[in-house]
């Protein structure tokens, strides 16, 4: 395997199609994002452009992407361009017909948000009664339609004690994987941080349990936070955060940022060449060439962790290169 490798263009674009949503979750980052949606023809043109630039995969999100009336058209277009298409949804609108239509449009994978194994907790957090049942039903509809279904869960105070039960519920509903995401302190997540975030020692304990679940679960359990490298070495060629090294984020108006949680605009797909953004951005260069600061200096895990999540560091310290505030080291 080669090492110290930077792809010539991003492999994945996480693409917000709409900031509209059926819910008003207290950790959501998109509710504070700028308004404005690109029209169908423009998104189609940009999808062709990014495929030409070498992007392999697009993951549609938002907001709730199923609120876009042209979602199937855009998914089919992306598929026709040779892109692997996935999306994240809250599942509320994803009935049997929608699942079948997504499959026919070429969508390979759908991640359904699930905040808790308990319906009352999930529904209260999402603000809509019945949302838990609809999310679980969506998983079943996707599996029946031949689409790989997974659960996405942002770990926070409402679910940190229930990870094991959540994996069981996800498995029973047909999910092939559970993606545990780290709480990012962006958007509403920053406003509600005191209510939702854990302290560093609690993160250490909860990640230990999440990682242990991989060995005893019938579904794949994925934990993406780079600070977990303090507990075990990370797999793959990318050390630290993948943002700006594997993937970029596209806002609903075409603005490009390193990820959905770093509100630094690098360019706009309608105006700028994606490869040029990828290869000339000073912000991306700084993300790829972080140097240890503060407690990271001298830490034995630096080469694997690279300071953890830069979005969290930026949100809480104003500096992308600061040590991750979740780090317990």
């Amino acid at each position, binding site marked *: *395997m*080669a090492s110290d*490798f930077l*792809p010539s263009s991003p492999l994945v674009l996480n693409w917000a199609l709409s900031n509209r949503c059926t819910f008003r979750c207290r950790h959501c980052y998109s509710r504070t994002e700028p308004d404005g949606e690109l029209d169908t023809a423009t998104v189609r043109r940009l999808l062709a452009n990014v495929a030409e630039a070498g992007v*392999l*995969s697009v993951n549609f999100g938002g907001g709730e992407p199923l609120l876009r009336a042209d979602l199937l058209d855009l998914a089919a277009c992306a598929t026709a361009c040779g892109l692997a298409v996935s999306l994240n949804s809250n599942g509320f609108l994803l009935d049997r017909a929608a699942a079948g239509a997504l499959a026919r449009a070429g969508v390979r994978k759908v991640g359904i948000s699930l905040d808790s194994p308990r319906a009352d907790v999930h529904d209260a957090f999402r603000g809509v009664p019945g949302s838990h049942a609809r999310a679980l039903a969506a998983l079943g509809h996707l599996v029946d339609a031949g689409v790989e279904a997974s659960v996405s869960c942002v770990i926070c105070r409402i679910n940190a004690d229930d990870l094991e039960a959540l994996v069981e519920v996800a498995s029973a509903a047909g999910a092939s994987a559970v993606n545990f995401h780290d709480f990012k302190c962006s958007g509403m997540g920053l406003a509600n941080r005191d209510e939702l975030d854990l302290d560093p020692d609690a993160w250490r304990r909860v990640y230990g349990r999440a990682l242990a679940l991989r060995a005893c679960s019938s579904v794949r359990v*994925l934990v993406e936070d780079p600070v977990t490298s303090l507990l075990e070495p990370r797999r*793959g*060629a990318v050390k630290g955060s993948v943002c700006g090294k*594997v993937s970029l984020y596209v806002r609903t108006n075409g603005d490009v940022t390193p990820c959905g949680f770093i509100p630094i605009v690098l360019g706009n797909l309608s105006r700028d060449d994606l490869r040029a953004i990828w290869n000339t951005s000073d912000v991306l260069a700084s993300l790829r060439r972080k140097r240890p600061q503060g407690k990271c200096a001298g830490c034995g895990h630096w080469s694997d962790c690279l300071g953890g999540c830069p979005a969290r560091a930026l949100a809480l310290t104003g500096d992308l290169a600061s040590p991750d505030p979740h780090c317990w080291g």
Partner: protein
Amino acid sequence: MPRRYRRHPDVVWREEGAGRDAAERGAAVGDDIAGVATSVLLRSGTMLSLNLVGTEIWKRCDGKTLDELVHELAAVFDVGPDEARSDLASFLADLDRQGFLDGE
């Protein structure tokens, strides 16, 4: 039945043209090109980069057995079958461990 090696259907990948050019230029003048990436693979957020030899193996993982891969690669890279088999088995085991291969 010998195992037939296939790329896992969930893996997306591409060759890196600039990397391949650099590797071929380096090989022509005898440089060590083991660390020059010529392709990139991605599955479920895990990225791997492969050098020239790894890429040629990866491209041939379309249902071939180990014997068939050894035969093809020994011819392409001008190495003996025994050396090719040992290196190949190790490389495939590494890809397999990381979930990038399919097939029985």
